[in-house]
């Protein structure tokens, strides 16, 4: 799979030493705690679906903040990979895996905290809920890295503008699932998500390999 354990180790070490994602979950949750009681106090009745939509919104906000926390600077990355004699494909796969490993526990924590603070739940079994979160996390991490290594922007604002619609698209698959679908429809949604994951991974690997050969 072209995963390099040194790159994986380095990415996780850098994250541990920076703790940058810790600084993200705190403000996101603070907003949640402050905003929700205010919103709810001003309504006579709150529809349960509103919480699920807000749940997705918080997931997108948190994923976007996570994605822009440390932009990849392309020429520095090229120098680093050449200095270490690493291939770009190894970087993409290892960095995606590292980001996934860092990101996944955090969005699980975010989801648990959201449910705890809003006293709401999703209308799907725990297994399907976890699978949907795993798919979302894999795709969110891969798309973020693809955007950063195929485009030369290193401006957080531009990155934010481009990445939010992508994450919105990813959440469209989760929305109906969480709102409650029949078993068969839920299976189709998850299969579609799996298909998208495979297409993104395969296409990116193909383009990076092609670029390297040229």
């Amino acid at each position, binding site marked *: 799979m072209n995963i390099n354990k*040194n790159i994986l180790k380095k990415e996780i070490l850098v994250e541990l030493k920076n703790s940058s994602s810790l600084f993200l979950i705190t403000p996101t949750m603070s907003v949640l705690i402050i905003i929700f009681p205010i919103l709810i106090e001003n309504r006579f009745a709150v529809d349960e679906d509103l919480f699920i939509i807000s749940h997705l919104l918080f997931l997108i906000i948190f994923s976007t903040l996570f994605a822009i926390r440390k932009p990849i600077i392309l020429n520095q990355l*090229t*120098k680093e990979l050449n200095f270490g004699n690493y291939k770009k494909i190894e970087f993409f796969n290892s960095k995606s895996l590292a980001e996934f490993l860092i990101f996944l526990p955090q969005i699980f924590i975010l989801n648990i905290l959201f449910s705890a603070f809003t006293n709401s739940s999703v209308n799907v079994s725990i297994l399907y809920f976890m699978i949907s979160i795993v798919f979302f996390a894999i795709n969110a991490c891969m798309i973020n890295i693809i955007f950063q290594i195929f485009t030369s922007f290193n401006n957080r604002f531009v990155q934010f503008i481009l990445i939010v619609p992508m994450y919105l698209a990813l959440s469209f698959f989760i929305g109906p699932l969480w709102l409650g679908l029949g078993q068969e429809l839920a299976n189709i949604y998850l299969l579609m998500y799996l298909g998208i994951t495979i297409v993104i991974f395969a296409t990116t690997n193909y383009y990076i390999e092609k670029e390297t050969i040229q």
Partner: protein
Amino acid sequence: MSEIFLKSSNLSLGYSNQIVIKGLDIQLSFINDYQIIGKNGAGKTTLMNFIALNFDGSYFESKVNRSQISINQISSTSTLIQELTLSENIDYYTSETSLASEEKLNIVFKYLPEDYLNEKIKSFSSGMLRRAELSIIEIKSPLVFCIDEPLNFLDSEGVLLLANLIKDRSIANKCNILSSQEFVDFEGLEFEVINLNEY
């Protein structure tokens, strides 16, 4: 394997509308050492980046024949990972080499005091960064070593270490490419000069 590792004719390189190098013929061999000299803006760093596969400009025109070999470059800005310690950086950058950890550390301690091993790179001075990068080059021993402004940031002891590294590599038939504004004389070493002032 051929001694020529890079051959390019009528090479032009640049950034957006500005062409920095135009019509340069270049042929580089393992058995020679080179010095790229030129005034400010002549394109020394651009050419060096091109040789070391780090060129990030937008204008490129030439036919290039290049062998798949190990090329490492030390540029004016450090490539080491700032958040990691020297020891972690060495593990990361020298993972492919067959040397044992102790041998690697012996090489590192030639360039830097032992106290630096567990220090984060971001606390290093420019000179120490250079020395750390030089130690990694000695451990990795790439076939081609490129260094931009070789004397920058180094004190007299550092320059001596660099001179010894280049000499040892030259004896082992490994290519060294230096770029600076003026010719740098390393006693006992011969360099082929690529003068960019002429282009």
